[in-house]
């Protein structure tokens, strides 16, 4: 099991914006692709790159971003899919030992990340973000220093959301932990979060993204009338309006997000204006 179950073939630059010392470098590594499936990995990696660079604000930061793929073969296709989580019981021999059902959570797909980082360090030492593309149609993924995703529909959305965490320090903007029916996540009673896209400060003059809130926008912009549940009300303002919307950081009340919706709250949504500003600020120095 492990490195004897495949081979690292090496990197290919698939989006070239310049020398890696001066750009922001993304690396996509293959897992669970047999050598005769690497052509498919090339297609998958390119599709990922295209989708990422089409998403705002990366669409306007393209000259700052290099993307590499690293071809790694595995003896067998896919990822482990343990029966204890309702899987098929498949145990393919793969280079990074990716497996669903990590911590008995069906869709938590995790590999040997230290092994992934060793490969990435060796082949693209200037890397900023590493992804592991797992050749499986089953839905799953995970975050951390190696954002891992499968080939299920929507997996690119997972990867970009995870990149929001790992590369830009963005917080989750959803207002529950497991679901809206849970108890115990009524009121955020903690200190001000360090992440740039959530706040407990509802003072218009001092809140984190005050410069982006227009004078006509009410603050708070939404208020949850029942802190025992998620706020069911629709947005009272136009899409894209930046304000203070109650509910974020796994709590129903006393913590605010900048827009009604955002990629850090729901997949298949664009990043909110504040998250976009954070990303632009972080990547602007990498522009030529």
């Amino acid at each position: 099991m492990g490195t004897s179950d495949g081979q690292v073939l090496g990197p290919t630059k698939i989006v070239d914006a310049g020398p890696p010392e001066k750009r922001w470098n993304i690396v996509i590594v293959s897992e669970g692709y047999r050598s005769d499936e690497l052509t498919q990995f090339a297609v998958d990696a390119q599709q990922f790159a295209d989708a990422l660079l089409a998403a705002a604000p990366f669409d306007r930061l393209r000259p700052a971003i290099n993307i590499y793929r690293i071809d790694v073969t595995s003896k067998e296709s896919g990822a482990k899919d343990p029966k204890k989580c309702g899987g098929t019981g498949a145990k393919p021999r793969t280079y990074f030992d990716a497996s669903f059902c990590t911590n008995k959570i069906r869709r938590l797909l995790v590999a040997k990340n230290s092994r992934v980082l060793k490969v990435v360090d060796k082949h693209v030492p200037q890397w900023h973000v590493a992804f592991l593309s797992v050749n499986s149609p089953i839905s799953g993924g995970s975050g951390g220093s190696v954002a891992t995703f499968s080939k299920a529909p929507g997996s690119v959305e997972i990867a970009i959301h995870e990149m929001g965490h790992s590369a830009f320090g963005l917080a989750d903007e959803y207002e529950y932990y497991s679901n809206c029916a849970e108890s115990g996540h009524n009121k955020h009673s903690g200190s001000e979060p360090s992440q740039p896209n959530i706040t407990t400060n509802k003072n218009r003059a001092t809140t984190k993204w005050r410069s982006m809130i227009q004078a006509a926008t009410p603050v708070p912009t939404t208020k949850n009338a029942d802190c025992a549940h998620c706020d069911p009300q629709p947005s009272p303002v136009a899409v894209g309006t930046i304000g203070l919307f109650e509910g974020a950081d796994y709590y129903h009340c006393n913590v605010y997000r900048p827009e009604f919706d955002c990629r850090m709250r729901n997949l298949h949504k664009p990043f909110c204006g504040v998250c976009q500003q954070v990303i632009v600020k972080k990547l602007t120095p990498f522009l030529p």
Partner: protein
Amino acid sequence: MAKSRKTSKKSKARKTAKPKKKSTKSKARKAPAKAKARQTSPAPMKAMRLTFSYEGDEVKLISQKRTEMMVPPSDPVTGFNKQKGFWAELKNDRDKTLYRHVMHNPTRNDAEVFPETPGQSISREPAPKRKGVFVVVVPDTDKGEEVTLSRSSPDEEGPESGLRALASTPATEIMRFKLKK
């Protein structure tokens, strides 16, 4: 003791170098602008890649590797004392924060679980005893002496204690080490 000796040598070096910078009036006028540019420079060309392992709450530094690369601009280096979260700081020999990187806590005891069907909600599930690795990249500058990691701990009491406990208290320093020179 070792630290104070080092500080003393550096102060001496700075004092010796100072008169050279003020050798002409024009250079003296330019100096503040240059100094300001250096201070706010968002993208050094040299970096130190730090790799950590964690198991449960325990975090260990496993490698320091110097790399020619640009580092994203720092997160705010002041005004964060009472904030909660997880971050790394690069500090000088006077414990002043030179660079700060706010992170989504890589050591947390839960995991994000994504929906199978588009349109369904993201959620979190407890994932105790997680282990893994994470990476922090800081600028590699002459002034950078130490790196610290700070983290908020999960609440011990309250309605969500135990597996689903979330961190709500200000972060405290959990690790400090000297950078390899």
